[in-house]
């Protein structure tokens, strides 16, 4: 690993002061006069480093502190406490120089001008970021190629579909070829095809320019496709920071075997396999599923047992879906094993 991380975050915290809103008309009037403030620790002593060229997935339930972290990393918000150095800048202090070296996409809202054609937005951004005509042309060609922007370059942004808009937003964020790209839920609301386009594009950019990417998402497929490293935040605290593979390896409790038996005669013999640790669930005609705890029984043993009893036509062994692991983490279980 290189000595100097590109982004370095130490004990970063952000506290907000909010007041409790009372309900109803009378409550609204009382709100005008007296407010009960409370302090919310949106981000609480978060520490991490990100190396150049890494793609890191940042996940957590709604309100966990993901967006607040991104806003501090992009210089929009000033932290309450802690240190943050990104690409050699303290983002909120040197905001205008710093933002030249980052690209930002907020999935929920566009960075483009609503009423003007996409290509005109790009031209304005070219001026804003001082991109030379030569670089602009070269990058637009790549974006056109991977993101297929050509068809709607002349359409005003407000007339684009969500998927088209997201592609344009991505291109806009990368027009000045920033070394760092922050994505806040880039695939939210997109269909499978559009999601795939976005992921392919991010891979391409990461490989070609070594762009460092930090992305928040609720779609864990994004992470599985793109990120080797994952950070999990909840209630403002960082719960896990490490390889996705390690998380899986340590926290994968169950696996499942799905198999298709030869015929119904064979299927009738299945109950003989069952015991207290082993439940067989029917999935489909002649298809069955066994979910098992891999700490109690090994895959090899289980397979031996199944194959000894019945004739199997097809068989598939799967990990527990990553969603299930993350659900357990959010629920507060299971993390001690990893963070220790």
């Amino acid at each position, binding site marked *: 690993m290189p000595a100097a991380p590109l982004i370095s975050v130490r004990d970063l915290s952000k506290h*907000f*002061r909010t007041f409790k809103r009372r309900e109803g008309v009378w409550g609204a009037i009382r709100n005008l006069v007296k407010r009960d403030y409370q302090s919310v620790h949106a981000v609480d002593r978060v520490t991490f480093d990100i190396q150049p060229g890494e793609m890191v997935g940042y996940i957590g339930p709604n309100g966990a502190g993901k967006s*607040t972290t991104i*806003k501090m990393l*992009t*210089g*929009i*918000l*000033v932290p309450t406490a802690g240190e943050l150095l990104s690409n050699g800048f303290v983002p*909120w202090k040197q*905001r*205008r*120089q710093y*933002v*030249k070296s*980052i690209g*930002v996409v*907020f999935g929920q*809202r566009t*960075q483009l*001008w609503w*009423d*003007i054609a996409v290509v*005109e937005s790009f*031209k*304005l951004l070219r*001026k*804003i*970021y*001082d991109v030379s005509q030569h670089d602009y042309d070269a990058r637009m060609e790549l974006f056109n190629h991977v993101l297929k922007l050509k068809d709607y370059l002349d359409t005003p942004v407000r007339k684009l579909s969500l998927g088209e808009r997201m592609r344009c937003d991505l291109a806009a964020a990368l027009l000045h070829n920033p070394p760092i790209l922050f994505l806040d839920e880039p695939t939210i609301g997109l269909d499978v095809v559009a999601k795939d386009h976005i992921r392919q594009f991010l891979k391409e950019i990461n490989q070609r320019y070594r762009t460092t990417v930090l992305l928040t998402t609720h779609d864990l497929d994004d992470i599985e496709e793109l990120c080797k490293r994952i950070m999990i935040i909840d209630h403002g605290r960082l719960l896990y920071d490490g390889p996705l593979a390690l998380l899986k390896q340590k926290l994968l409790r169950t696996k499942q075997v799905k198999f298709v038996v030869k015929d119904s005669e064979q299927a009738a013999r299945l109950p003989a396999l069952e015991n207290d640790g082993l439940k067989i669930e029917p999935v489909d005609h002649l298809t069955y599923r066994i979910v098992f705890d891999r700490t109690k029984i090994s895959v090899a043993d289980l397979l031996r047992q199944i194959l000894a009893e019945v004739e199997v036509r097809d068989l598939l062994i799967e990990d527990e879906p990553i969603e299930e692991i993350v659900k357990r983490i959010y629920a507060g279980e299971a993390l001690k094993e990893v963070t220790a």
Partner: protein
Amino acid sequence: MKKHLQLLAAYAVQFIKVRFAYRADFLISTGASVLATVFAFGFLLVLFQKVPQLAGWKFEEVLFLYGFSLIPFGLFNVVSLNLYNFGNDFIIEGKFDRVLLRPVASLHQVIFEVFRIESLHEVVVGLLAVWLASSRLRLAWGPLEFLLLAFFALCGGIIYVSIFLMLTCVSFWVEDRVGVHPPVWNLIAFGRYPLSIYSGFVQFLLSWIIPFGFATFYPSVRLLGRAEFRLYAWLVPVVAAAFFTLALALWNRGVRNYASTGS
């Protein structure tokens, strides 16, 4: 600076393109504003049918003042749209995040994002009224007067922008969709008549608290060559610079507050 001017031009071209794309909307709104401006002059005519003078000012002089006041006002109107919408569009709807993500001064991005170009008609009508009044008063216009007119108009525009920018800054601290501009907006009309007709309190208010007088009245006094308040014209650029500096400082504090609260 050069980059900012280039950007300003690029923004303006873009915006005008969009504006012309909605042709009917543009024509109707331009037509309506021209009518409103013309009616205002009708009111002046009616007024002077009844009274020969206003605090020692002849009809032509008031016409001059009224016409001149439209020039900085028109310039201000061209760029003011986002000042009124700022609280709602930028703070509550969250567009301000986008502004902070771009390597250009935030105020530049907000003010020069939309242009109400139809307001340029106020500049044109104002110039016509000034020209008409000047020729009837037989005022001598040399190069200095033309320069002064342009300079005063620019200062006046800056004074208007500064006053309303300060009101806009309130949105950084208070969540407010409507904005606090309307009451002050209603005071603009007071600056179109000789300040001498008002009580001392109103004169003070319009000179030192909400200095519309320095955008309209004092420059006109100088250009008309009247004796009263003659030296005040020297203060026009001072007031413009002071209020703009104040507004900018308030804006920057607001941005800092936004960055710490994220509201």
